[in-house]
């Protein structure tokens, strides 16, 4: 897209953490329970209740900071962000303001082969608000089960220059928090929420243009649509000599447009101040190092190991590393088989297909790496062909039986005995004299027909290489 304007995008992501309990109390964070059943004086905001930080929230924040190249603050504090809204029982949200736990990070992305580094301004811990249910009448209902659920807010620098860069950043960040196990990554349920600050400015201008904040977008596709729409909207305004207003806009998934969110426009005046209920958080070097040791191998490291040590093509490495459980499955399989490319083909091919078709997650996959390795072993030693291996795989998926049992029970062992193959080739040639004539007359593409006939006669069990060889020999003679 050529334009007179440069696009500037900064992103704020709210990551809901996978802790068992809320950030400042012992209430469960389980989803979908009876409204207000998971509440206590702390998360209801009752007077006199004392919030106490969940240690795991600090640990997850430190890990996320380390995985995004942040420096971890040796001392950070909590602050009250004051505003009134019915889903916020205390009249303030406990967040971090002046001294967040992580700062000055970076994520490296790549768009159309161009590497780019996106700055991360800060990561801070905060509590979520409750949930508002809008009734048809003149009332709303409030469920405070979600109130006080731990969140990390991850704020990027305004470093992105296109919606594609924004999506690349978000996908990378999403992959990292899911890999770390700090977030379940479910966009639809709101575990990973994105607000985008979008502005445009004439090329060469140093100052940023006035930005619009896009809220409430719960899929990568919608985020891209919303940003692209917003760029177009602001371009039209500037082209017409108008001015962009700083405001919050909501993305409407039905129309693919954004609209102004009036009513919340009155200047925000949150009057942050340190929360006297919470003591400062001191993070020692030893704690940081312990968290660093607990970090899993991250996607980037996995990809370079898959390429560098296992010799996989970059594409395969990226596909396999995209999901942590998938990558771990692959690692287990390679440990058992050793043929990295063959393993990659099976994981990305048959396994992925079976998972997709049945809507199964890899965590519940009935075919374990050990079972799959059993099939690959029989391909390697020529007991079965690749084609039959797929039949074995399907049977395995259904029954959970091991490869050797399935091959035995269904009589799938490959026919490599040349005598047996020769006999079948003779039969096929005798039954199709016309085609034999044509082949010998120069119509060599009939070879495929003969191979097919032989395979059908052997129910696919004949060794394809042996069949080809025998056919060539017999047909030319």
């Amino acid at each position: 897209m050529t334009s007179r304007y440069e696009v500037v995008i900064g992103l704020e992501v709210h990551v809901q953490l996978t802790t068992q309990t809320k950030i400042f109390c012992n209430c469960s964070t389980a989803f979908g329970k009876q409204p207000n059943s998971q509440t206590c004086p702390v998360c209801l905001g009752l007077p006199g209740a004392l919030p106490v930080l969940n240690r795991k929230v600090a640990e997850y924040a430190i890990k996320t900071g380390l995985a995004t190249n942040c420096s971890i603050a040796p001392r950070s504090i909590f602050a009250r962000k004051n505003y009134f809204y019915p889903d916020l029982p205390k009249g303030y949200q406990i967040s971090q303001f002046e001294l967040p736990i992580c700062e000055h990070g970076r994520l490296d992305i790549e768009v159309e082969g161009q590497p780019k580094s996106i700055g991360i301004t800060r990561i801070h811990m905060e509590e979520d608000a409750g949930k508002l249910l809008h009734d048809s009448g003149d009332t709303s209902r409030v469920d405070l089960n979600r109130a006080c659920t731990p969140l990390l807010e991850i704020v990027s620098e305004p470093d992105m220059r296109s919606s594609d860069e924004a999506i690349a950043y978000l996908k990378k960040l999403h992959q990292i928090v899911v890999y770390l196990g700090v977030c379940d990554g479910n966009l639809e349920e709101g575990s990973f929420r994105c607000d985008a600050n979008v502005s445009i400015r004439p090329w060469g201008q140093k100052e940023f243009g006035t930005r619009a904040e896009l809220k409430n977008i719960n899929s990568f596709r919608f985020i891209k649509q919303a940003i692209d729409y917003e760029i177009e909207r602001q371009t039209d305004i500037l082209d017409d000599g108008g001015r962009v207003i700083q405001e919050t806009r909501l993305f409407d998934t039905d129309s693919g447009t954004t609209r102004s969110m009036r009513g919340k426009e009155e200047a925000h005046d949150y009057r942050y101040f340190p929360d006297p209920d919470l003591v400062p958080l001191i993070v020692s070097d030893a704690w940081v190092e312990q968290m660093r040791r607990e970090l899993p191998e991250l996607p980037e490291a996995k990809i370079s190991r898959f390429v560098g040590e296992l010799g996989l093509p970059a594409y395969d490495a990226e596909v396999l590393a995209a999901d942590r459980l998938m990558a771990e499955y692959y690692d287990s399989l390679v440990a058992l088989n050793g043929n990295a490319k063959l393993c990659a083909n099976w994981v990305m091919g048959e396994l992925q297909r079976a998972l997709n078709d049945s809507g199964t997650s890899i965590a519940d996959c009935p075919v374990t790496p050990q079972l799959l390795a059993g099939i690959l072993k029989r391909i390697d030693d020529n007991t079965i062909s690749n084609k039959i291996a797929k039949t074995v795989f399907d049977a395995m998926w259904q029954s959970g039986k091991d490869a050797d049992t399935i091959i035995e029970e269904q009589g799938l062992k490959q026919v490599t005995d040349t005598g047996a193959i020769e006999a079948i080739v003779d039969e096929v040639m005798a039954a199709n004299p016309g085609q034999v004539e044509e082949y010998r007359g120069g119509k060599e593409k009939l070879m495929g027909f003969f191979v097919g006939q032989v395979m059908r006669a052997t129910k696919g069990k004949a060794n394809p290489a042996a069949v080809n060889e025998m056919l060539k020999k017999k047909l030319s003679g």
Partner: protein
Amino acid sequence: MKINREQVEHVARLARLALSDTELETLTGEMDAILDYVEKLNELDTDHIVPTAHAVPVENAFREDSVGASIGSEKALQNAPEASDNCFVVPKVIE
């Protein structure tokens, strides 16, 4: 004057306080006097002093991440002016 009537009105609005003219008048004077008093602190050199975030010299108070008892929706809603379907009922919020 450290503070004017508009600022007091603004703070009152943020706190959802409806103040009469007389109250605004009184509060403006009182808040001004308070700010004036606190202004004395500016006479001190605080360049090398870490801002105080907490009055008690305690740090790192933690809870472990294990689920404890909640009080349940019935108790949670006990003092609600209005409730239905296990929820607090509030005037319609329009976004």
